[in-house]
């Protein structure tokens, strides 16, 4: 609310006392904030029974057998983290390369056209990516992995690669924004000092834009962590797989695929099981909040530097 008020131009603030739009928008904003807080609180309160039932085993053990009332979610936390990290490691270098091309080499009209196309990619519903993953990616990975005798093409690796493709446009367009926010004058100054284009990018643009690039990567991470349906289709949904030599090429489970699966419906009749599902929601919220919070902190850092 306070940030809203401070950024309002004079013509709105002067009338805000009797402006119904200002009133309604503020009320709605407040409502949204309250709803967010309330749902987080609700989630946590509902998760309390399983926290007292499992204690640290909830995040420290990998045995999730709801019929035996055992709820150790470690394997799902691992699955979520490793899938998102694979996605990030694959997507960020490519996205950064593309962003350097659009931001530093392309003329501005071409840049906008390329960006528009890439942003369109980000608008493709994730279930479509998931289906492409089922049709093409899992078969391809299955063939690729045949020497290691995988269970099937549904592996943590498949999910990671699919997510990498999905977050690529997001990361790319945000990297491009970060590079664009480096003032033109500094590039000109660098060129004036005799640096060529590549040197300008390496010694002026990238060093200035790095917090923004990191923020882009973290936002991509946030998206990767929260993604459900595409991962659901190619991850195999095998519980309790901890890190091992072959775990990347075995089926696994993430927090989102568990939440999106059949168990959520089964859990409704059973308070403890339901509470465990809510706890998974809490864990997911914490992981996403960490990624997105990091991104915002970093972007704050960039904007302050550039200002």
């Amino acid at each position, binding site marked *: 609310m306070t940030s809203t008020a401070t950024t309002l131009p004079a013509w*709105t603030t002067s009338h805000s006392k009797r402006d119904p739009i200002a009133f309604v928008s503020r009320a709605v904003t407040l409502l949204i904030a309250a709803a967010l807080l309330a749902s987080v609180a609700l989630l946590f309160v509902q998760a309390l029974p399983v926290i007292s039932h499992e204690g640290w085993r909830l995040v420290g053990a990998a045995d999730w057998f709801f019929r035996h009332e055992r709820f150790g979610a470690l394997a799902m936390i691992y699955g979520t983290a490793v899938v998102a990290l694979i996605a990030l490691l694959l997507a960020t270098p490519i996205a950064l390369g593309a962003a350097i091309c659009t931001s530093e080499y392309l003329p501005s009209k071409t840049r906008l056209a390329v960006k528009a196309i890439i942003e369109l990619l980000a608008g493709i*519903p*994730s279930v479509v990516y998931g289906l492409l993953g089922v049709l093409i990616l899992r078969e391809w990975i299955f063939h690729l992995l045949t020497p290691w005798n995988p269970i099937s093409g549904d592996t943590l690796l498949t999910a990671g690669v699919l997510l990498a493709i999905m977050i690529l446009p997001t990361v790319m367009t945000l990297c491009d924004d970060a590079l664009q926010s480096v003032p033109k004058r500094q590039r000109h100054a660098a060129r004036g000092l005799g640096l060529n284009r590549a040197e300008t990018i390496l010694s002026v643009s990238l060093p200035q834009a790095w917090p923004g690039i990191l923020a882009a990567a973290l936002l991509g991470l946030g998206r990767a962590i929260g993604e459900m349906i595409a991962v659901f289709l190619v991850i195999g949904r095998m*519980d309790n797989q901890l890190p091992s030599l072959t775990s990347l090429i075995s089926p696994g489970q993430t927090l989102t695929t568990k939440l999106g*699966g059949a168990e959520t419906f089964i859990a409704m*009749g059973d308070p403890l099981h339901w509470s465990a599902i809510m706890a998974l929601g809490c864990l997911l919220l914490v992981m996403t909040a960490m990624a997105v919070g990091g991104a915002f902190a970093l972007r704050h850092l960039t904007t302050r530097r550039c200002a």
Partner: protein
Amino acid sequence: MRSKSRPLHRSDTLVASPAILTAIRQLPDSYISPTQPTAFQVAATSTSQSAAFSLRQECRSYISPTQPTAFQVAATSTSQSAAALNCDPSAAGQLHKRSSLLRSYTILALAILPFSTLPAQDTLRITGSTTVAPVVERAAEHLREPANLTIYIDTQGGSSGGIQAIGSGQAHIGMASKQLTDKDRTRFPDATLIEHAIGQDAVALVVSRDVFDGGVQSITREQAQAIYEQKITNWNEIGGPDRRVVFFNKEPGRGTWEVFAAWLYGKASEAPPVNHPEVGANEEVRAKVTRTPGSISQLSASWVNDPAFAALAILDDAGTPIPPTAANIANGEYPLSRPLYVITNGEPTGAAKIMVDYLLSPQGQDLVRAQGYLAPDDLAVTQ
């Protein structure tokens, strides 16, 4: 008034009032489902002008016709204020004055909409088996509006919970995927429990073609148990090809899994904790078993009609292989099978009669088939 405004240019982007932009930027977290963050998140989090410019269009694309949410509010207000600012100042002022009141009412109306409900004439409480529940839930979707019924369905306690509820008068209809026993009837002497068979559920064990052609064409209960518990890990242990066993386990809650587990362990709750890759819908089972060499899974028998995979026969104690044909299911020879019932106390009346009649009607029977079960008619034809 809109006609006066010139088309938007990229440079107009930031004239959309910051308060609205801020409000929109805060929306995605609560309004966008985890399955669709995509472009909106990009636009809302991006600081660039181009992204902010596309925000308006993206708002529109996210409005669903069935869910008029705050998005719609935000989107209309953004575009209108942007349009207003593009008009000449006097016209903008008028638009602002006229529409602001209207918009406040719209917002209020949208806020109130979800809380208003129609008065219900009749309430129907249905409880019991998770196997039968999907069919009844679909039927309820078809009946709620036209018949103006309030229907509550829950699966507390499964089949036995359903029988208990109907016997003790806590529900109008019970759902069960097992036959009523004499014990059930004597428990409730005051009730006259009537079973209405709405279908038959049978589970086939399907294997990929290479396993079937490699020599495994039938299986005993003990072998199935050993495979489920990961004691048999290669098909050559039971006379098949030298290939790793890949067990795609039906996800929990599926009737198919319940039948399978009940066959192996007597009760589904007795099944030991094991980890297998999980599969959901029958389509998924079919696709994965077809494409994964060495795989086995549980599949509703009505889906076994594809030469790309094969159903195993079950070897009975005498060593006779019993394939999951409709005839074997109908005469009870095939072990992984059970009837699906809805149960009423006495002949159904009122809302319960509407539901039972619907389930037994051709439309209701199609719902039974859509769920992958056999309808009683199908059994009669094959017998």
